[in-house]
Each structure stands twice: as C-alpha cells, then as structure tokens.
C-alpha cells in the first residue's frame, strides 16, 4: 500500500486527538529545548572565554592585595599585603618574571561637553600596555607618558559609548573628572570631592578586551595624586616569560607572601570557569536527558491509550485486510510524527531559549551588562554535531517509544477487537 496514504491515516488519527497529541509533543519539546539551549549556552560560553583570553596576554599574573578575589563562597576577612614600590621590586626579582606593571584604579564621574559618565580610570605605565593587551592599538593620538600628569587615553567604548549617537570625547579635548574620597577627620569620616581636568591624548581601537575597551588610562603619578593612594597600588601585572611558566612563578611569589596576597592567572581562571561551566551544563544536561526519557514515556502512554481506545478501529482495519505490518507502521508513524514535530519545535525553542538565557545572564550581572553595552557580548553557539546528536537521540527515542504500542496494536485479534463494545 501507498506510504503516503498510510501517513494520511496516521495523521488523521493524531489530528482527532489534538490536545493529547499536542501535549505529548510538548513533552518532547521540553526535553529537546532544554538540551539544545544548554548545549548552545555552554558552547557560547566556551567561545566567549576563549575570545576574552585571546585579547589578554596569556603570560600574565595579576597580583592583588588579598586572596579573596578568586575564592568561591562567602567573602572572608583575609590578610592584606600593601602593594608598594617595595613589592614591585620584590616581584621583579622573582625568577621567570619579565616585566612588572603596577597600577592604580579608581571610579570617577567624567564630564565631557555636557555628557556625564561613570568611568573606571586606571593609572599605569602605558608604554607597557602591549604586554597586557597584545592587540591594543591607538586609533589616533599617542600614549600617555609616565611623566604626563594631565594626559589621558580612552578605551574605545568610553569614547564611543553604544548608548550615545555621538562620540563622548574626542582627541585633544579636555574632560573633567570628579573623584570622591573618604578622609578621616579625627573620628569622623568626611567625603572630599576631588576635581581635575585631563586632556585626551589618544583613543584606543576596539580590542574585545573588556578592560581595555571600558577603561580610561592616565599616568601612575597622576592616578596616585587623584585617588590619594599614597603609593599603594591596587594591583600589579607580572608578565612571565611564557604562559607555561605561570604556575611556577605563581608558586615562587606564594613562597614570599604566602596567603597574604592574591594571584590570579587569567588562563587558569578561564580554565576554572570552563570547568565549572562544564559541570553545571553537565548536570542540567543530565536533567534534560531525563526529561527526554520522560517525553518518550509520554509517547508510550499516549499511543498505548490510543491503541486501547481504538481496538474496534484496529479490529475493523484487520478485518478488511490491513496486515499486521501495515498497522505496526501506522502506529510507528504516529510516534515518529510526534517525535519529529517535538524535535523540530524543541530545537527552535531551544535556540530561542539559549538567546533568552544569555540575555537574562547579562542583565542579572551588572558587570556583564556594561560589557554587553561595550560589544563584548556572549552569544550562544549551536554546533552542528550537538544539534544532530539531540535530533537523533529524540528521533530514536520516539521510534523506540512507539514500538511497544504499535506492536500491541498489530497483535490485536480482529475478532476480539470487533467484539469489544
């Protein structure tokens, strides 16, 4: 018999039970969508981290005053080391360290031709920017020299914010910054607002490096004065000879300072994030897998019920000459139709879900939000192998799920089936 005619009969039966068929499709959709969006999110996250790592020199260690920065769990009181020129000299002498770049950081309110913006300013030796961001390039102008007390370089998204239709600042113009610091007057705290003008010496091209694109840079001396740091750095970049040395160098620094200092290796950090991410997606992936099996059981239930309800119809079909095999195929077709529709809708829903999840993650994390403004966005990635895997899994599951009810239907005796009232 004609296969198309057979499909028509199957679809007719599915169509008769729209709600039930629809709900069963939904069961498949949920599992498939979960898996698809997770795969997409996981792959997107990996890509994002790799991209970020690519813009950052791999042979960097970031040294911070305390060790709390990287630890998961509740923040703890940890001993701090004041990062001074003394520290810089010590680290410079550590074997394997090529360059040491200390920096000051402060958050200011910046004003430029009527617009106002909250900006993170970093004070560091700009001649060494290449070590930190190998792809850093000036769009125009020049780098701020260490002796320049009024010069400033802007990251691409400071100069060209995505929420403004004109540049925030141009080369050669001056901007004013306001920095609020807390001064102790006896026992009382007092807020002092420092105001200073800077001149834009140069603007960086877009690099994809979240820090470089979103920071403004001034000389260390200017930052020390503006933020009243009294020579205490906020962090130190230690550039190693080779990324592979990071671990050894980290150990050597640890030997000197013990737990009293924070050392971050972006490379190691990226690996850690990837690991955690993989574990997380693995866990949810297992849940998604279970939900796919639940979907398969849903197909079995739906079709089995359908077989029971349609015993008379099946009996009639057998009486008028439909073979066991034809009836088996008819019911298998129904389960495959449910499975296919579920997979296709699930893949679409999963793709949509992955984008929604990314949006959600970006919005819930203010830091990520600012980065999403800056163009360093994470987007889900759908690897063809992942999609194919989910597709085949769901398809095969729905065929298997259909087998038992279909077999039961094909084995029904026409006599008993017709006799049943």
């Amino acid at each position, binding site marked *: *018999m004609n296969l198309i*005619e057979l499909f028509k009969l199957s679809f007719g039966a599915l*169509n008769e039970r729209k709600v039930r068929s629809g709900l069963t499709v939904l069961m498949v959709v949920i599992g498939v969508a979960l898996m698809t969006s997770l795969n997409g999110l996981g792959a997107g996250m990996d890509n994002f981290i790799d991209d970020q790592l690519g813009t950052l020199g791999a042979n960097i260690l970031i040294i911070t005053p305390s060790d709390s920065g990287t630890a998961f769990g509740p923040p703890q009181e940890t001993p701090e080391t004041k990062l001074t020129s003394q520290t810089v000299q010590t680290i410079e002498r550590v074997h394997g360290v090529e360059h040491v770049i200390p920096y000051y950081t402060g958050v200011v309110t910046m004003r430029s031709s009527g617009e106002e913006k909250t900006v993170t300013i970093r004070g560091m030796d700009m001649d060494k920017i290449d070590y930190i961001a190998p792809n850093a390039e000036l769009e125009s102008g020049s780098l701020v020299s260490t002796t320049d007390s009024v010069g400033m370089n802007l990251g691409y998204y400071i100069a060209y914010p995505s929420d403004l239709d004109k540049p925030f600042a141009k080369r050669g113009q001056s901007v004013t910054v306001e920095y609020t610091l807390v001064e102790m007057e006896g026992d009382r705290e007092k807020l002092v607002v420092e105001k200073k003008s800077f001149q834009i010496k140069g603007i960086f091209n877009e690099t994809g490096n979240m820090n470089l694109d979103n920071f403004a840079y001034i000389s260390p001396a200017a930052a020390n004065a503006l933020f009243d740091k009294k020579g205490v750095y906020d962090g130190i970049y230690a550039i190693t000879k080779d990324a592979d040395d990071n671990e050894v160098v980290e150990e050597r620094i640890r030997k000197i300072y013990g737990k009293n200092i924070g050392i971050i290796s972006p490379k190691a950090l990226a690996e850690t994030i990837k690991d955690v991410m993989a574990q997380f997606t693995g866990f949810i992936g297992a849940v998604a897998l279970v939900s796919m099996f639940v979907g398969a059981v849903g197909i079995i239930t739906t079709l089995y019920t359908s077989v029971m309800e349609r015993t008379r119809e099946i009996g009639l079909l057998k*009486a008028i*000459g439909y073979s*066991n095999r034809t009836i088996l195929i008819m019911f298998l077709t129904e389960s495959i139709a449910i499975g296919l529709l579920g997979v296709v809708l699930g893949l679409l829903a999963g793709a949509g879900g992955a984008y929604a999840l990314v949006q959600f993650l970006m919005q819930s994390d203010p830091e990520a939000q600012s980065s999403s403004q800056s163009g360093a966005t994470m987007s889900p990635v759908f690897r063809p192998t992942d999609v194919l895997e989910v597709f085949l899994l769901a398809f095969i599951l729905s065929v298997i799920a259909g087998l038992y009810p279909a077999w039961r239907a094909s084995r029904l005796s026409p006599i008993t089936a017709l006799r049943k009232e």
Partner: protein
Amino acid sequence: MSDSKKKPRRSRKYAIETYDLWKTYKTAYEEVHALHGIDLKIKNGEMVAVVGPSGSGKSTLLNMIGALDRPSKGRILIDNTDITRLKESTLARFRNRKVGFVFQTYNLIARSKVEKNIELPAIMSGTTKKARKNRVKDLLELVGLGGMQNRKPNTLSGGQQQRVAIARALVNEPTFILADEPTGNLDSKTGDEIANILIKINQERKATIVIVTHDLELADKTQRILHLRDGKVEKETEGFSYPMKNFKDK
C-alpha cells in the same frame, strides 16, 4: 460430502465450501466444540442466511469463513482456495480482496468522511486514487447515498451508516459479502431497507451474500436458510420472501 478425507472437488460453482469444520475451545475443565463438523456449500451469486440461537456457533462460523479465525480441524475453500493453510499476511490480503464485511455496529471510523471510510479497503489493496473516487461515487449511488462523500458518519442515521458500511464491503469487489446481524441495531423499517439493498446487490450485481442473524424475518428474505444448533447444521429451509422474479440460478 461429510467425508473429510475426500479431496474437495474443484469447482467454480461455489463461492464458499467447508468440509468437516470443527472449532474447539479449551477451557480449564473441558473442551467446548463451537463447531461440530460443518459441511456447507454456498453457490456463487447465492444469498444465504445462517440462523440459530445464541451459542449455536453462528459467530464462530462467520469468523471461519471470513478468514478472521482458523478452524481446529477441517477445510474452508473460498473461490477454490483452501484458506486454512494460508499464513497470516496472506490471510489479511485474502480478507481484503475476497471478503466484504458488514457489521451490526457498522464500525465506521468517526473522524473520517464517508468517502474515506468506503475506500479504506481499496487503499490497502493499492487502488489508484482516481479509481477509488469513481468507485465510491458509483457505490454511493447504489446504496442510495449519492453525493454524500464528504459527510461525517455522525451526521448520518443508523440506516445510512449501514449503507456506507455496505458500500465499503463492496469496494474491492469481493467474492462474497459477510453480514453479521446487519439489521440488529436498526428499527424494522430501516432494517427492511437494508435488507432490500442487500437483495438488490445480490440480484443486480450477482454478489454472493451470507447473512448471519437471528432475525428470522430478515432470514426469510434470503434464498436459503441454514439453521445452526450446537455447532451443527440442524436443517436447511428456503426463504419464502426472497423475490424470485430476477433471480436465475447459475
């Protein structure tokens, strides 16, 4: 004729022949003989009724000659083919081509239109769509439902539904029609109409028809009545109400 060892005579005269047909059901305690060695011959173009009380073996006999079930012993020849030896898939094919079933409860598929219901056996046999359409149209005219292709069964009366079922039984031009209590669910007037349609098909189309019923009035409208009791043919009588004028014995 009762000698089962005698090789059945090959003949085109008979649509249905059974030789020493037994059906035995085994229960936990005893063996029940539903059919007790039945021999019968139904000629091509004949219209026959099988009557008998409940438990007489009517339904079992119907299942046997309808190729829905296998006898415990004996032979069934349909169109000179011994169907007791056919394997299941061939039997399905056989039912599709040679038997047209009409049931007491019509057994139409409610979601499908009249046309789809009628063409179901023809879909299985691989008839082309065009041929099916023409055949459905023709058959609907025959049963007096011309133009009702697109109606759903639940918009039809019981009598109309049974007419659709009769059209479905005829769609593959079977060797014989096997009707199981075809008027059982209908009032007497509608039952008469169905009976008349069956007679018309028998006389105009020369279709062989076997009606299993306990409606003696309906049985009386056939040519020959087989009375079953305890799994045996107790006696044969003639139906007196069968209109003789058009019928020619072959």
